[in-house]
């Protein structure tokens, strides 16, 4: 009798019947389409760098890798918090979930502050979007990325406002995964932007 091992149906219970792919298919579509636009940005940047090598080299030297690097670290940390928030959503742990959403938002806000300092630094040094091709790309691309961060913050804020109980969290696991996925994309794009604009010689 005892030779048959009864395998428990509920395996750990941590994943709570989540389907195999996280987030809705539409979020993936959004991420794919958005990355196509960013791929065009990267293409334009590389192409113009070939056209005006001296201008781009000179421009890159005026950029602050300290601010850029700090923002990379800030976003990587925020991505960690976002991943923890999604994990807590799957565990239906409302307290941890709200804490990690708040921490993600705080890191996002820190990114905005560093960006503000960096931009005002550039403006006071006399550079703006119309200075030359390098600065046009720098301000337009990082500005477009900044818009994505602000959008991400508003999605996180919406989750924070609308999910206050375990019951509400149950209906918002997919939505949290979607926001988490978006936030990781924003992080990834910043890493590429940072290396491309600030670092690559």
């Amino acid at each position, binding site marked *: 009798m005892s030779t048959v091992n009864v395998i428990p149906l509920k395996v750990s219970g941590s994943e709570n019947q989540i389907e195999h792919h996280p987030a*809705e298919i*539409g*979020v993936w*579509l959004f991420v794919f*389409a958005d990355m196509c636009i960013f791929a065009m940005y990267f293409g334009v940047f590389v192409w113009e760098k070939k056209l005006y090598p001296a201008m781009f080299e000179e421009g890159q030297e005026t950029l602050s890798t300290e601010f850029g690097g700090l923002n990379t670290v800030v976003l990587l940390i925020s991505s960690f918090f976002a991943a923890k928030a999604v994990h807590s959503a799957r565990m239906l742990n409302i307290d941890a979930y709200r804490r990690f959403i708040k921490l993600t938002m705080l890191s996002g806000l820190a990114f905005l502050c560093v960006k503000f300092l960096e931009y005002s630094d550039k403006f006071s040094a006399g550079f703006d*979007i*119309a200075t030359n091709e390098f600065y046009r790309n720098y301000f337009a691309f990082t500005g477009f990325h900044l818009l994505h961060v602000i*959008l991400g913050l508003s999605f996180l804020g919406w989750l924070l406002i609308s999910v206050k109980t375990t019951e509400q969290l149950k209906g918002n696991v997919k939505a949290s995964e979607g926001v988490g996925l978006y936030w990781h994309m924003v992080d990834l794009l910043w890493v590429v932007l940072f290396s491309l604009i600030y670092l690559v010689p």
Partner: protein
Amino acid sequence: MTDRKPLIIVAVVSAVMTTILYAGGMFYVSGFLPPPSPALSQLEVASFYQQNHTAIITGLTMAFVGTGFMLPLCVIGSVFMAEVEEGFPYFSVMQALCALATVIFTALPNFIWMTAAFRVDRSPELINLLHDLGWIMWATPSWGFAFQLICVAIVGLKDKRPKPFIPRWMSYLALWVAVGVAPTPLVPFFVEAGPFAWNGLFTFWVAFFSPILWIAILFVIIVINIRNNEQDNHQGDLAGSQL
């Protein structure tokens, strides 16, 4: 519940009219699209208006009539959206109002360019002024259209019925288009041609064709849906959820 079939027919007819009149007038007859480079010299711009006087006025007239047909299309969209919303249909009304803004900002530059072409002996400087004014007005404001798409996406994502009025992924795609048109306020910064000039990669090619792509996909879905639902007399949703 309103009978949907006539509405869908009107929407399709308006979309076809907009496409034929606007694309025909702007791309084919007047040659305004794709946009000329902002870096053209004063004399080049002036001679363009003086030599194509009649074609420009004909094409621009076709185009502004075509933009008018966007209104029935958008208002019908709001009819479908309003059935999802509870209470006052805020986002549906907002969508229709923003459609009006889109139509006005798309049609108004046509009259400015027409003014430039109106008197053949107008001085090149003044032609240039009107030319710039028209292009900046045409290429810069994208907020009306972005708000329309955001409203559609919000209502689309709120729609929990088994047959939503558009598939959920179309709402996400609408949000992407709203983000894609966001760089257009950069247009007035750039006199030289470049990716953010009024004929640029991001401010014209992406910002103009991504909304068109979205609308085209919507119509493909509507057609597929109408075909699938021809037998059963179910109230055809705008684009259905089979997909």
